[in-house]
């Protein structure tokens, strides 16, 4: 584990390390098995109408009433490393409510739960690899990593590609959040330009008139996949 993370944009300031990994991160480098064309990881599970229903992508409509908070639309494209759209694949999200509280029993942050907000959503990417969610902007919340540690507002994302190697779990952040400069979890990404990849852009084009603020965030999946004929490609 790295003990000290320096924010290279603020010389001299040290970001606290992410402590939870001390006994969990492996000490040995992973074994490279990239050469096997038969590896099952070059293929992956598939999801469809059985797993995702139309309402799942609007997290503000999962209860009788409207949730508290600033309504937002979050959308972007999922691409592979060749820049091709990742089509028809599962995107799952989860997040805290507007007060920074998760609908999870172990979250005991003394901020109110919202009976009209659970904070989980799903969708399948479309033919252009696009996903879109309507939700509310999550609140910041404190955690025990160091004194006065607060997580910046974020949405957890889970994505599948065509191959298991492309599996991705990450977090999306909001532009201009002052907590970004202090967050040990964001700073597990040591390169500043790479950290910026996790910050969505405010996009008025995605805002819905008199309804929601728009944020744009594109995602690139890692990992090789088996070369299969693309059933949706037009010859």
């Amino acid at each position, binding site marked *: 584990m790295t003990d000290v993370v320096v924010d290279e944009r603020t010389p001299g300031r040290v970001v606290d390390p992410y402590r939870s990994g*001390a006994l969990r991160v*492996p000490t040995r480098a992973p*074994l490279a098995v990239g050469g096997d064309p038969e590896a099952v990881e070059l*293929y992956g599970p*598939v999801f469809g109408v*059985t797993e995702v229903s139309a309402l799942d992508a609007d997290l503000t409509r999962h209860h009788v009433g409207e949730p508290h908070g600033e309504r937002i639309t979050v959308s972007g494209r999922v691409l592979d490393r060749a820049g091709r759209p990742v089509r028809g694949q599962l995107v799952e999200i*989860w997040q805290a409510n507007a007060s920074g509280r998760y609908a999870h029993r172990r979250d005991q942050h003394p901020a109110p739960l919202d009976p009209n907000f659970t904070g989980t959503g799903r969708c399948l990417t479309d033919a252009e690899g696009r996903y879109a969610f309507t939700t509310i902007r999550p609140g910041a919340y404190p955690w025990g990593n160091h004194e006065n540690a607060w997580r910046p507002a974020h949405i*957890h994302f889970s994505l599948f590609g065509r191959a298991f190697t492309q599996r991705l779990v*990450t977090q999306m952040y909001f532009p201009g959040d002052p907590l970004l400069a202090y967050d040990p979890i964001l700073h597990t990404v040591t390169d500043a330009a790479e950290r910026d990849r996790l910050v969505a852009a405010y996009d008025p084009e995605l805002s819905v008139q008199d309804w929601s603020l728009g944020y744009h965030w594109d995602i*690139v999946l890692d990992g090789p996949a088996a070369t299969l004929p693309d059933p949706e490609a037009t010859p």
Partner: protein
Amino acid sequence: MTDPVPTPTPTQTVGPFYGYALPFPGGGEVAPAGDPAAITVHGYVYDGAGEPVPDALLEFWQAAPDGSLAGRPGSWRRDPASGGLLPRDAFGFTGFGRVPTGADGHWTLRTLPPPPAAPYLSICLFARGLSRHLFTRAYVEGLGGERELTALAAERAETLLARREGAGVFRFDVRLQGEGETVFLSFGH
């Protein structure tokens, strides 16, 4: 596009609160109900101090017994009235399972044996504290994968072997760090 060969989006930890979002009922019941060929694979996840990890999430992907890697939807279903998650139906094989560890660090998967051509379960493990998920494989003992396993991981091969404990029951522990650390895998380009 200014960047024709994009680099991948960085990973971030799954954190402690995925539990109301990602697990689904019957996530470890990958074998069709009542299938006589079903096997049970189970084990613990341990940290570097040898303590069980109570908040890890394991995902499983494998070839179908006939060798197919096409997969099929239906790992979970939806209650149309409530929107809630229902277990998969008793028919067909999706090849995908998702199991959170319990308070004791234990997980259980019931699945069909993978085919001799790919006699392993691929595992993707997430946990609070891990900024990046970990890939490993559980080679099911007795399906002919032992030679491949030794070629792959030499003296550490035994960390990738799901050992037979009894009829149709196999044990696979994951040690994240330190003594007996499990072999984790990366898939290059």
